């Protein structure tokens, strides 16, 4: 555990990728293989299910430090990180334990989940007492299921490649799917050749960068697209001829890989979760596919020839049992984007043109209403394509995907061949009404905001109703300014939440909007974020619920 805590501190102590890779290489070279396997597991963002609830941990940590709960909460607000707060509080140390990472995880962490509460408490308190502050921090990160450190999977793979000599694409692939960290796994991972026995293993997803990162944008990072002719020229200059590109709708669903191998079907989400059981309609497609086929596509709620809002999908996510009612209310289909494997052969390096033609044949042969070829958006010119892009919402899409016709299916996020081109977000002007301290690098600053809009006429008896929460989008300087405003204008405190004098108006952006019975305002918005501070507006100028409701899509009743 000591070495792993040192690795964490090393990774945390630098912003430089070379130093991060060097730290991981040092660790992987010296750690026992079982520890290395667990380290990789955590570093690439995997985590065992949370073993102890945060509420219990807080209470136990306060007790161990001999402080009242309110004082613990004050500390937490100042630190902004639960695991770190618990690590910083003084704990009477008993004898130091010198277990390795794998011993801690397999011997203490994993069995925790099965224990009853008094046993859990005993184990957790004993663990705290036997670890130093730095180890305790990492340990807390592991038991709270919040282990994150500033390395991307790409960097972990780079370090592994340096240690093993195996190329990065192969390593990325070997890290996909479900695997159990162990000494054996690590040996297989870094071996020059392995018999890839795991038939469920998906390929790394190919991701696209936002077109904004390629084209000239304004100070807020938005595309200059006021003049369509000029913008078409910009596209032509940046991307070349439209005939080299394939345009598709960018859907807002669940990106997934459907695998059919040796008569078995596996469905993986982009977060590398096996979701076969949750989408029986999609899993059923597998039976119609030939063996040795892997499709990349989007799971979308779809009914009566129309894509439904993402919210419909959310009603299914997280359900343990899918009732007939749910299946009928939010039926799903797979919009196929790409073909990654055919006849058991990895075809990712073939050009998109070829893969798309093969995919079309496969989809055609299946003849299933649940499997659709994601349609191509045809246009004669960049200008015409832009006009179609602007109509994305009418097609229930959030923009376009541009893919170069001769591109291979890359590993991870690739610059140049694939671009996402989203439509401008919906916007609304809203008033800051509640604030809470942020986390991580925003610790101790009030940066988590709740915004309200008017229910009724703001000048005649209207009242502000909370309608969205957002915390990203401000510059550091603006964040400090708003923080100072909140401190000076707090009306009430409810635990960590402050009620703020309604005065500041913000322009919010969001991607989608739908009705919601769970929200006071009756609406829920998707991906809300702050676009800018509107110092030029008074609170009476903020939007009303009525104007926001007008954005609601006309939804077929379930």
């Amino acid at each position, binding site marked *: 555990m000591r070495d792993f805590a040192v690795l964490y501190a090393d990774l945390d102590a630098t912003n430089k990728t070379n130093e991060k890779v060097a730290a991981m290489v040092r660790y992987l070279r010296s750690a026992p293989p079982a520890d290395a396997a667990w380290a990789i597991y955590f570093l690439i963002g995997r985590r065992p299910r949370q073993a102890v609830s945060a509420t219990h941990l807080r209470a136990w940590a306060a007790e161990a430090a001999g402080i009242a709960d309110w004082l613990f909460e*004050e500390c937490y607000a100042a*630190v902004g990180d639960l695991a770190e707060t618990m690590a*910083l509080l*003084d704990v009477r140390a008993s004898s130091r334990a010198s277990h390795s990472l794998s011993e801690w995880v397999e011997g203490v962490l994993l069995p925790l989940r099965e224990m009853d509460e008094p046993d859990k408490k005993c184990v957790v308190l004993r663990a705290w007492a036997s670890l130093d502050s730095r180890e305790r921090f990492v340990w807390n990160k592991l038991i709270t299921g919040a282990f994150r450190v500033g390395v991307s999977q790409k960097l972990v793979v780079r370090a592994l490649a340096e240690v093993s000599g195996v190329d990065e694409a192969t390593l990325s692939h070997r890290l996909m799917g479900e695997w159990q960290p162990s000494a054996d796994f690590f040996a297989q991972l870094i071996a020059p050749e392995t018999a890839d026995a795991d038939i469920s293993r998906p390929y790394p997803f190919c991701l696209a960068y936002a077109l904004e990162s390629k084209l000239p944008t304004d100070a807020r990072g938005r595309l200059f697209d006021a003049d369509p002719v000029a913008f078409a020229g910009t596209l032509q200059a940046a991307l070349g001829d439209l005939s080299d590109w394939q345009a598709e709708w960018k859907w807002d669903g669940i990106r997934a890989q459907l695998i059919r191998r040796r008569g078995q079907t596996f469905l993986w989400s982009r977060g590398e979760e096996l979701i076969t059981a949750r989408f029986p309609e999609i899993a059923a497609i597998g039976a119609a596919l030939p063996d040795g086929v892997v499709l990349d596509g989007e799971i979308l709620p779809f009914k009566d020839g129309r894509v439904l809002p993402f919210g419909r999908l959310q009603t299914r996510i997280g359900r343990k049992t899918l009732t007939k009612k749910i299946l009928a209310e939010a039926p799903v289909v797979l919009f196929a984007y790409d073909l990654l494997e055919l006849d058991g052969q990895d075809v990712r390096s073939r050009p998109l043109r070829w893969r798309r033609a093969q995919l079309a044949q496969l989809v055609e042969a299946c003849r299933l209403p649940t499997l659709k070829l994601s349609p191509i958006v045809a246009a004669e010119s960049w200008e015409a394509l832009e006009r179609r892009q602007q109509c994305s919402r009418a097609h229930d899409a959030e923009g376009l995907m541009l893919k170069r016709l001769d591109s291979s299916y890359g590993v991870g996020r690739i610059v140049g061949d694939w671009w996402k081109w989203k439509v401008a977000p919906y916007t609304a002007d809203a008033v800051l009404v509640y604030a809470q301290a942020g986390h991580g*690098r925003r*610790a*101790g*600053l009030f940066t988590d905001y709740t915004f309200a809009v008017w229910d009724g006429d703001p000048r005649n008896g209207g009242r502000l109703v909370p309608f969205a929460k957002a915390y990203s989008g401000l510059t550091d300087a603006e964040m400090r300014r708003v*923080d100072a405003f909140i401190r000076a204008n707090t009306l009430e405190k409810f635990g960590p939440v402050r009620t703020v004098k309604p005065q500041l108006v913000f322009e919010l952006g969001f991607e989608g909007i739908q009705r919601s019975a769970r929200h006071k305002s009756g609406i829920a918005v998707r991906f809300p974020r702050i676009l800018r501070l509107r110092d030029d507006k008074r609170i009476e100028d903020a939007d009303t619920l009525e104007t926001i409701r007008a954005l609601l899509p006309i939804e077929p009743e379930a």
Partner: protein
Amino acid sequence: MLARFGRIVLLGRRYHPPWVAFAMSDLLRLTDDGLYCEAGDFWIDPWRPVRRAVITHAHADHARPGSEAYLTSSEGRHVLRLRLGPDALIEAVPYGQPVFMNGVRVSLHPAGHILGSAQIRVEHKGEVWVVTGDYKTTPDPTCALFELVRCHVFVSECTFGLPIYHWPDPRTVFAQIHAWWQANAAAGRASVIYGYALGKAQRILAGVDASVGPLLTHGAVERVNAAYRESGVALPATEYVGGVADRARYRGALIIAPPSAHGAPWVRRFGDCATAIASGWMQVRGMRRRRAVDRGFVLSDHVDWDELMRTIEATGAERVLLTHGYTAVVARYLQERGLQADVLSTRFVGDADDIDAIAEKA
């Protein structure tokens, strides 16, 4: 003269906001100008110009210009002069030696915060008050060790008044700084360490092993170094960055600068350099990450939680007033322990200068 007279009259009638929780008969009370002793007719660390200002230490939030006369510790007179300029009327008194003002006995006692820092002991009619200014109880070679003064009312700072703050042994911290500097020097890079120009910078200089490489300083730091040396504090040889002709000497050097230099054009001259902040705030990861420096060294000139609690208990005070920092938290904690504790809303900001945390502190 008329203006001064007018102010005296006004003082007696001035409205006191409700958070000033103690009576008019108090030995020290809060006015719009600062903490005022009516019996002795003087202010402690006033934030507006007054007739007589007794100064705990020379940091900007405690020593403000414009008053007619200042009283400081003998050790602090050069640094206070640096803060207030050549025209200020500064009187100095050795630690422990009483000064009588209208029959009120005032004495200054080491606070261990920076050179010349003092707790102000005020005694009148058998009642003793102590105002700490900023203080730490850990030894520091650049200033006198904190002296515990027993009192009835203890007016304390609590910049780091949360139980998450536990300072590591400074020797451990200096070993970390040493290893960091050495590794950077071996890699041919400059090491830039940020700390408050008055106090922290000199503590760092006195604590590092100067054999690793040259010690270079920002102008603001070098000016204070001169005042420290003039006061008899031994500091290793330093060189003002602006006077370094050969840029190759940056590599391997330890450069000491105030935090405001971070991200400024000033640091660009060092090219690829490693950066660090030395501050108590560095105990919290988010604080360091927000500053975007490579390292944070936990080195504070304030008391941590345990030191604060031990000191409060050891003074024997039956009443504690908290001037700045996590005042509400500490007051509540002490109240729950049966002490009489209140918040005093001063304009002191404690360690804010260390990492421009002014807006970030509750």
